[in-house]
């Protein structure tokens, strides 16, 4: 994609991470370390919730940083740095998920060691039915429930949700990252929200919160 001189100048002025990346392009190793320190936790967070495994998320994040380094000489300031970084991350994660899917390894919910209901959804159903001793799910359980809800979304919905929620990305930036139109992102995120609502509603309706009144 051709990038105009004016937009390159705009991104360079507005985004300090773009300026750092331009230094990386000029083989400044310290600039690369700085960028990595700024983004490593954010990137691993998104990837972990996308692929469902911390160890894999860290491997993928390293692959992303390696690709950033290898692509440094071709870098042009055509977008915010985070948009460029997550475009690479999106490709890396999609490849990994495809390979995992071929090997039937995808399991996004947290594995449990409990002898009771094996899935979080089973436990959610139990909680909702009142069969659990206490209907107060603790923080870990809440995490588990939300992870399971997230795993109920399609891969693309999940990526869009994570970029929007954790990276605070606009529809326009998500569109660039995921190579879609902003209108498609709007529909994708709307469907994701509705899916999340439908998955989480049994918990929300029958949990600690009082029923909604009109």
């Amino acid at each position, binding site marked *: 994609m051709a990038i105009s001189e004016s937009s390159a100048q705009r991104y360079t002025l507005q985004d300090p991470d773009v300026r750092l990346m331009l230094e990386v392009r000029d083989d400044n190793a310290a600039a*690369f*370390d700085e960028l*990595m*320190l700024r983004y*490593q*936790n954010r990137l*691993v*967070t998104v990837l*972990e*919730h996308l692929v469902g495994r*911390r160890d894999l*998320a*860290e491997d993928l*994040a*390293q692959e992303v*940083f*390696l690709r950033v*380094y*290898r692509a440094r000489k071709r870098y042009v300031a055509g977008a915010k740095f985070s948009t460029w970084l997550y475009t690479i991350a999106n490709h890396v994660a999609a490849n990994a998920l495809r390979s995992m899917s071929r090997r039937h390894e995808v399991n996004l919910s947290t594995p449990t060691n409990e002898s009771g209901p094996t899935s979080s959804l089973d436990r959610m159903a139990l909680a909702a039915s009142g069969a659990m001793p206490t209907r107060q799910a603790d*923080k870990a359980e*809440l*995490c588990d*429930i*939300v*992870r399971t*809800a*997230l795993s109920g979304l399609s891969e693309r919905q999940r990526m869009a*949700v994570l970029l*929007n*929620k*954790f990276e605070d990305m*606009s*529809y326009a930036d998500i569109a660039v990252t995921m190579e879609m139109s902003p209108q498609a992102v*709007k*529909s994708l*995120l*709307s*469907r994701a*929200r*509705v899916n*999340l*609502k439908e*998955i*989480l*509603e049994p918990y*929300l309706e029958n949990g600690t919160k009082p029923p*909604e009144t*009109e």
Partner: protein
Amino acid sequence: MTEQSTNTEQVQEELSAYLDGELDADSVREVELRLARDAAYRQELQRLERAWDMLDGLPRAAVGDSFTRTTIEMVAVAAADEVKSFQEQLPRQRRTRNAIAGGLAIAAGAVGFALGLLWWPDPNRQLLDDLKVLQNFEYYYQADDIDFLRQLDRESLFADGDNDHAS
């Protein structure tokens, strides 16, 4: 797709974009007016928002020092590989450059020789052209007037089977 489901999808998209702050000022005003008078619409917004807010419960990763260290090591290895590959390519590039330079020199030489042949006067060609003059040089030397020699020629005094010696 029924009209109702399309309508529902539109409402959900509108509310979702409203929650994300992605609507323009006019659309925001319309949504807020409807929120004020439509309880079902308001409830749908709350349900979407509530489910969305639960995502805040997801943990944020904090990687350890070993992650940073190993990533930097991986990048350092990649950088070293780049340098090695560049250095390996240098003699090959130099050989290629020398071969190209040699080829160009030979081609230039050949072109120069061809042009020289075309443009440089051939001294033997000049001698051949002047052969008859040289053969009769003694006569020319003794005569002062070229017209006189031509007159002698017309009278076939130089005849040796060829009539245009002096021409």
